[in-house]
């Protein structure tokens, strides 16, 4: 095992995969500078600078994948994916079904997501629930360096489209690029265990659709992903002082969704609290409740998610995004005890 940043873990995984498979190419805006080390090592034939034409280069990458390549296409931030949505919704997601299973698009769409650094509601969305709503696409949201590497290996090897989301609070260069800009006068609530951690030296795949139990507990199940996992663990630590024993599950992937792990935990604790940085309505929080109901579980339920357009004001943004205070309050409510905060 070796200590790596979240960003370094992804880059090393890419370098390993690119050295092994010449069909892997990276396409995206500014990638020759953002991925300067990969550019220097693999050349500009393998790291292609794209014009600001998301609709064209994402769709082109999808069809290059259909024709034998293994592109990793970068859409700078997930908010910009909207510009390329037709190619994802109406094409990539449907090729396998439309071709009667005879054709597929093995593409990874890599994009930064998430808020917490005061950049406004058009640059800090999560959107993983919105994307996972479409049948035919896998959606990956790692919460730590080890998972970031392992899930990237699986995403690259997957025969179908995978959207790989890296949270900007975890990937140090994105936070530097969009949040800090060389300043030391700003601070962000970066989860230390998410931004830096031990990663296996040899490549280890983490299968898509396999959640991880980060902390075992008997009283309450918290389900989350990405930065939300760390907020949940922080809240679980505080709730432990109140003698509340929380189980914390990191989904790792939204689609496929690890229903077994969720249901096993909820049937044990009888309480489900879903923490999601994506929007509240018609999304992951409701979906997980539905899955538990379909499995005939009886449980109490609360959810914390983003309910409005994310405000630009950094102070108000921090109230809108899931935080440990909100999680603690919801947990106390479920357990019928007065909240401390």
């Amino acid at each position, binding site marked *: 095992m070796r200590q790596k940043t979240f960003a370094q873990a992804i880059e090393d995984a890419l*370098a390993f995969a690119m*050295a092994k498979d010449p069909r892997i190419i990276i396409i995206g*805006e*500014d990638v*020759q*500078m*953002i991925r*300067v*080390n*990969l*550019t*220097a*090592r*693999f*050349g*500009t*034939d*393998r*790291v292609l*600078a*794209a*014009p*600001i*034409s*998301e*609709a*064209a280069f994402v769709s082109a990458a999808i069809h290059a994948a259909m024709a034998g390549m293994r592109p990793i296409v970068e859409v700078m931030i997930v*908010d*910009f994916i*909207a*510009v390329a949505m037709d190619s994802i919704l109406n094409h990539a997601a449907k090729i396998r079904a439309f071709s009667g299973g005879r054709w597929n698009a093995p593409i990874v769409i890599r994009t930064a997501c998430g808020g917490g*650094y*005061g*950049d*406004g*509601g*058009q*640059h800090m969305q999560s959107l993983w629930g919105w994307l996972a709503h479409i049948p035919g696409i896998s959606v990956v949201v790692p919460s730590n360096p080890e998972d970031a590497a392992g899930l990237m290996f699986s995403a690259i090897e997957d025969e179908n489209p995978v959207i790989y989301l890296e949270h900007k609070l975890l990937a140090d260069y994105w936070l530097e*690029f*969009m*949040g*800090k*800009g*060389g*300043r030391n*006068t*700003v601070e962000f609530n970066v989860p230390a265990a998410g931004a830096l951690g031990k990663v296996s030296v040899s490549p280890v795949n983490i299968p898509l659709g396999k959640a991880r139990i980060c902390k075992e507990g008997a009283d309450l199940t918290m389900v989350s992903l990405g930065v939300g996992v760390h907020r949940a663990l922080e809240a679980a630590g505080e709730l432990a002082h109140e003698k509340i024993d929380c189980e914390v599950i990191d989904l790792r992937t939204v689609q496929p969704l690890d229903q077994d792990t969720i249901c096993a935990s909820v049937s044990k604790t009888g309480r489900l609290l879903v923490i999601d940085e994506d929007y509240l309505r018609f999304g992951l929080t409701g979906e997980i409740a539905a899955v538990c109901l379909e499995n005939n579980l009886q449980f109490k339920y609360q959810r914390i998610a983003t309910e409005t*357009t994310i*405000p*630009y*004001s*950094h*102070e*108000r943004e921090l109230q809108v995004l899931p935080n440990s205070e909100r999680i603690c309050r919801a947990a106390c409510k479920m357990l019928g005890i007065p909240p401390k905060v």
Partner: protein
Amino acid sequence: MPLDLVKLYRKMYHSRYFEQAVAALWQQGKISGEMHLSMGEEAICAGINDHLRDGDALALDHRGTAPLLMRGVEPLSLMKELLGKSDGLCGGQGGHMHLFEPDFLAASSGIVGATGPAAAGFALAARYLRRGKIAVSYFGEGAINQGMLMESCNLAAAWQLPVLFVCKDNQWSITTRSETVTGGKIIDRVRAFGMSGDEIDGSSVAEVWETAGKVIDKIRRQNVPAFIQAHCVHLEGHFLGDPLIQLGRRPFKKIQELGGPLVKSILHLQGANIKNRTNAIHGIGSAMLDHIRADSLKKKDPVRILREKLAIPGQEIENIERAIEQEIDTLVIQATATET
């Protein structure tokens, strides 16, 4: 209306000093997130906005500060918005990339190219509700390859919409040289839609003002779209803290940071052949060198260029500047003082 360079200088210096104050507040950590400034684009905004009238619309990109100030938006409420205050222009909800002022039909977007369809829509409404009014779409040359902008050029040409498309061309899409990802010449491309296309020096406010005057007059009278490509520089790069600008200002420190992993990557046994690697390094190196020689940017600083041309006594110029500085210094104190 005759060309009034002193009036335009006032506007440009006002915007420049306002944005310098913004940059300082951002450096102090009082403004969050990214910060894209208009420094270097002032002559374009001033020269074009001077021809706008009540009822004209503005579709703004992620550099909305200068065009809004020059359109007459209340500077204090704009500054408060950038600070995220609840009594700011948009209640602290929008921030610098999402500035809206319905009184001026001014709407911003942080999505590259989105100002094309926005201006087309404003112009369409003008056809029904405000005859003789126009819509201006501001964007950078990086946006020229965005489908929605090209579609809007066609829409405006096919529907005869009174849109002025303004391409602020600084040659760089963040760290990518725009010409390396663009086919053909921009001006040839837009002329093919059947609209007029003028290519001008965007650091000369007189040139912008003269061209914009003629073009906007034609748009108003004939209800047709037109395109202006104005060359300019971004004195602070793509945004404050731009990695290439940081590199230009502190080359040794940044190269040291980059150096280790970069050298390791270049020398790694597995990878591209030597020729491809050399080409890649050449591309990266030349982008860096361009920014290390960043002094060339200052030569195209539109505020400085105009200042040297003003035919009034130096003392008068200084008086104008001091008055603006005082106004904005006071405004910064007011904007940062409130608790909301």
